[in-house]
């Protein structure tokens, strides 16, 4: 039975890393949002599983927030924004897909090497969770770096936060304050982003970050 518990937790956390890879090569915004919803769904399942095996009912709240807000509301709202802005064309990636995937694999390998070596004394479940969480965080960073579009940068950032939630729930008994704050920060962050997207629309008629670069104060 213990073996099964461990395997399912492992499966879900590993699944999150795989979905992060899926995010990495999506070249259409709609598809990117759908995959992000899947990302949040896998996270919610993983957190709920942790809540069950740790016997920590407050984690169900975190899972619920991930499910409703990140798998439901946010993708729908972003979908609308994209529709209204009429930018559902292809995303321009800075680096090619092949190279990005290779970089992603290297990052995952790096986080495995670092985390597994460092946490040799921790219990196996927490340590693999942490290694997966770091992979998701690094992949989220990679998404942010390789995208030029504001919406996909935001998706990258949210997938990064998903990795943090995975790490926080994997650390057994971590106080509730922090989990709520994580959820809250996502909410606030989203409001901020929402406002910004509309303001950017107001000023630039595009959400392409390249357009922003033109207005740097130093170039005259």
């Amino acid at each position, binding site marked *: 039975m213990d073996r099964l518990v461990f395997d399912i937790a492992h499966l879900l956390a590993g699944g999150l890393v795989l979905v992060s890879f899926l995010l990495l090569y999506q070249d259409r915004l709609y598809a990117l949002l759908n995959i992000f919803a899947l990302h949040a769904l896998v996270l919610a399942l993983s957190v709920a599983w942790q809540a069950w095996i740790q016997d920590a009912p407050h984690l169900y709240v975190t899972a619920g927030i991930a499910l409703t807000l990140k798998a439901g509301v946010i993708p729908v709202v972003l979908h609308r924004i994209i529709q209204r802005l009429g930018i559902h064309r292809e995303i321009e990636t800075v680096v090619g897909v092949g190279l990005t995937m290779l970089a992603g694999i290297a990052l995952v390998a790096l986080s495995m090497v670092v985390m597994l070596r460092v946490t040799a004394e921790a219990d196996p479940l927490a340590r693999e969770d942490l290694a997966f969480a770091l992979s998701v965080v690094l992949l989220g960073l990679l998404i942010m770096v390789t995208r030029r579009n504001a919406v996909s*940068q935001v998706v990258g950032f949210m997938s990064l*936060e998903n990795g943090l939630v995975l*790490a926080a729930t994997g650390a057994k008994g971590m106080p509730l*304050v922090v989990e709520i704050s994580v959820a809250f920060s996502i909410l606030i962050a989203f409001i901020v982003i929402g406002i*910004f997207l509309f303001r950017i629309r*107001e000023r630039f008629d595009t959400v392409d970050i390249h357009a*922003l670069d033109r207005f740097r104060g*130093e170039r005259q």
Partner: protein
Amino acid sequence: MNALPYDAVGAILLVPIGTAGLLALLPNYRLTARLNLLAAFLTFLAALSLFFVERPEPGQYLLVDDLNIVFIVLTTFVGFTTSVFSASYIAHELEIGRLTPAHLRFYHAMFQVLMFAMNLALIANNIGLMWVAIELATLTTVLMVGMYRTHEALEAAWKYFILGSVGIALALFGTILVYMAARPTVGEGADAMVWTVLVAQAADFDPALLNVAFVFLLLGYGTKVGLAPLHAWLPDAHAEGPTPISAVLSGLLLNVALYAVLRFKILLAANPGAIAPGPLMVTMGLTSLVFAAFMLYRRRDIKRMFAYSSIEHMGIITFAFGMGGPLANFAGLLHMTMHSLTKSAIFFAVGHVAQVKGTQKIAEIRGLTETHPWLGWSLVIGVVAIAGLPPLGIFMSEFLVVSSTFAREPLLAIPLVFGLLVAFGALLLRVGGIAFGAPLGGTAPVKASYLPMFAHLALVLAAGVYLPAPLVAWFQNIAAILG
């Protein structure tokens, strides 16, 4: 004193947050500007009273000790003077129509939320709570940087938001790792995030996990400090936001992030098996210093130039704390205090200059000492202070940093002195053009209070000439805590 039911810690936190709620509701901007000033003054008084009232026992969430009192008093003092400056600054912005009364309601409420967040971060005993407070401070400043809604302001706010969030995310990962390291020793639950408990038992933590945690924390909070490879948000955010916010960002928020790094440095120092955090901080500090010193030469925007100067000085301070030991820590603390006071005074001056000249471009500002003698000479004194010339306070702290480095690691002193000299040249070169020569640009008189600027410069001058013995003893005490 204890007969009154007075809670200094409560006042420091509740006055700003309560006022923020009130300011969000009141429509009259003259009233709100005064209320903002009053609240900042009361918070400052409450912070001063921390010296006199009995300190509360360190609890689950809050802690008052020798280290954070200095930070809190400095933060609330500069917050107060900035609110004085801000009152005259925004009156002018309203006149020329860059801001509307609706913006101001938002601005004042955000200013107080920012003061609350910084005080909370400084007084927190829980590393999770500290993280939440720094995140809150980041979000409020993002909103304020983007307030003018120009192309540049939006780009700056977006960049600040993205880089700040990534930094904050890395710091949270580091915080989780610290919890993981503490859990086997301290046990599950809230205690494993309480800083005083962590320090007491740090010797038994898993050193390897602590090392990785510190790297994440240094990178994460280091982004907020503006250390070299992670500084990209800082010049834009300083240049495009309202000037009072530039003053608070440079003078205070960078310190708060550095304070977080220092807390974790103490934690690591308590564990014999962990790496020494010093060399990492020394490297990042020196890189920031030398990099920013060269960047100073090519600035065309006056606020951007002083933003790079902030990176330079945060580099020096991080370097000093990284060196460690009683003398270098003392120098670092002194330098931090002096830099906060001087840099916010400079931003006050620059705010007035940009308003009377109607531009921030260095090339379009000339002969300031002829058209506005008080303002021009104050700016000159501020720049002379920040460049590190005697007899002002920064000269003394820089001298201490350099001499303590020469005594212990002469090789490190070479890049340090080199960076200082390069920055010195750049600053004097630029200020010469701005202050002297044939006047260029607007000559309208300044309708503003110079009081905050003079107060800061007078303090810096006084500290350079004579440091009171109790202050020296206090700083020496903290330097010993920092190890």
